[in-house]
């Protein structure tokens, strides 16, 4: 009884009209993004405090990260954000086919990002560049290089898990878009998933210089 025929421009019973519902949903998502920023914020605060206390450790740690991987991943995520907005753009223009294509490219970008992340992780785990107590890399100069890698794994790990969740949500959007459920009157799910995906991109924009490009 709670299902509503969205394609006909209908809406849940407690809203005045479809636009009212759309705006409220976006409001909710923005509040949720606020919580996400603050959750990552704790890690950023820890990053800044530790990098101020131990600058050499952080410079040394960054040397073991390959900036090329980071740069490629940045470009991949930026591209995926672009195709995400295209997904909304085509839904707004009632072009279901191109909407599905755009969202699919976004999903593929997510896979590329995670694959590169996997290569990086595998390489570091092999070298023994592990977090905290598990750190076992013999040639480390700083006595607490493990702390840098704790920061690295926590930040990229939490970010990576968000990428995975975002990919799942985009997949769900693709399935619904293929059924032709989205149109210029109703595309709230893509809009909301899009906002989430852009936030994930936004966090990576800061993580890239902070982790890979320190001097």
């Amino acid at each position: 009884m709670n299902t509503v025929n969205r394609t006909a421009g209908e809406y849940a019973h407690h809203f005045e009209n479809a636009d009212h519902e759309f705006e409220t949903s976006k409001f909710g998502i923005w509040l949720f993004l606020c919580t996400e920023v603050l959750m990552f914020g704790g890690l950023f605060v820890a990053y800044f405090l530790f990098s101020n206390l131990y600058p050499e450790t952080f410079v040394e740690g960054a040397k073991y990260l390959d900036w090329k991987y980071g740069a490629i991943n940045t470009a991949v995520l930026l591209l995926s954000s672009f195709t995400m907005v295209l997904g909304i753009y085509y839904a707004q223009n009632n072009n279901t086919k191109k909407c599905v294509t755009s969202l699919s490219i976004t999903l593929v970008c997510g896979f590329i990002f995670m694959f590169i992340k996997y290569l990086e992780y595998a390489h570091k785990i092999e070298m023994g560049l592990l977090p905290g107590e598990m750190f076992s890399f013999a040639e480390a100069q700083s006595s607490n290089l493990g702390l840098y890698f704790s920061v690295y794994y926590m930040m990229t790990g939490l970010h990576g898990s968000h990428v995975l969740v975002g990919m799942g949500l985009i997949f769900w959007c693709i399935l619904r878009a293929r059924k032709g459920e989205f149109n210029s009157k109703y595309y709230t799910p893509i809009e909301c998933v899009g906002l989430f995906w852009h936030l994930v991109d936004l966090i990576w924009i800061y993580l890239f210089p902070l982790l890979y490009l320190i001097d």
Partner: protein
Amino acid sequence: MSSAVIDKSKNYINHEKGLWSWLTTLDHKRIGILYMITVMAFFLIGGIFAMLIRTELFTAGKTIVDAAQYNQLMTFHGAIMVFMVIIPGIPAFLGNFFLPLQLGAKDVAFPRVNLMSWYCLIVGAAISFFSLFYHGADTGWTFYTPYSIKTDNGTILLVLGAFVMGFSSILTGLNFIATTHRLRAPGMGFFEMPLFVWGLYSTAIIQVIATPVLAITLLLLAAEKTMGIGFFDPALGGDPVLFQHFFWFYSHPAVYIMILPAMGIISELITTYSRKVIFGYKAIAFSSVGIAAVSFFVWGHHMFVSGQSEVAGVIFSFLTMLVGVPTAIKTFNWVATMYKGSIQFQSPMLYAMGFLFLFTIGGVTGVMLATMAADVHFHDTYFVVAHFHYVMVGGTLMAIMGGIYHWFPKMFGKMYSELGAQLSFAFIFVGFNVTFFPQFILGAQGMPRRYFDYLPAFEPLNQISSVGSWTIGVGFLIGLWVIIHGLLRGEKAPDNPWGAKTLEWQTTSPPPHENFYDQPKVTGGPYEYR
């Protein structure tokens, strides 16, 4: 959409039938009832733990449990009461039920999210209780490092449970902010909202901003325990005090998650039972938001003796005093509302007046603790325990009880036994003071908190305190009887038994599935008594 004939025998309770319809409901009123049942069950468990703690402390040395069991009792009493009772207590239970009703809305903005938030609480609580099968946790509800890193791994489950329950709190807060902004009835601006809504709105802001920091803190603690990441471990260059910063950045504002909605209820009760328009509506409304904002600037007063720098301590000591300003504004406005009002001593009003008395004691001792020089002496003594119980129990719990009695006729369409409610209040009020006032003295004399044992010299006052705690227990049992008796045998309640003016009293008792038969329109302020 609506049928021609309105059947007024249908309400949200008998709208659909069966347990399944309750577990999958999207109706904010039913979700509120689900929260009521869970919170009451957790309160019973937490209360039993409290009784056991007080009974153990009846005599010095071992009385009924050993030291390790005592630490578990103390930890679970704290964790249950904070995460499962007081934080969801008012917003998720009474707030869920009455926020949309007071706004004249049909539901909260995101009904599915609302249900999900209840399941988060259930799952989180289940994980927490599961830790009892893995040697439990003995860190206290604050999980301070480095001890929490070293202690038994059962702690991880309690930490993860609190993490999941945090999402419940976030989702409720998010829902309430969106509802308040977007779903007010036609004609209701922000300054026509009831003050309970203002309280919930301020609470929701804190829930949304502070809780994510708790989430990351607990996640880091779990990673610390499983992988040894070293964020809080000095051996690896980490900082144990950083844990306290992160923890209290959430947990101090969380104190206001507990008290702000309580203040909202008190505003409703005092104006209703004084039959008088609330004094200083805007001052009360803004002081709610003011408390919410200031609450983020004061967390360091929990850390005066934890190795935080003196400069930070002085800053926090000063900022903490600021909280006293908006709080006092509220108190004076409540007293001014009662002045020359036609006060009715219904049980909700008794609870409201109990709140004023106890909360003022809690607040004034709070200013004593905010003074850094005094806090060095009082820190980690029973003075602190007495202070926050005066605020949390004397404040929040009094407000919850008052709120339950005030809205009971609306929620269930039945009246409760006024005599029983007054008797319950008498036991709770007297028992509460007998329990916690001696603890101020004990604390000032230097009895440390959280210990299983104490010096023989402290025994007489501890025994008074324990007797008081049993009195409170009796009071709450009577309260439980009043509620159950009202549910089963209560007389049918009229739509507006107290002659209150806010929107929820304009619909039937209990309200129909869609809250109102006609969309209410608002033309004036919420408290136009005279």
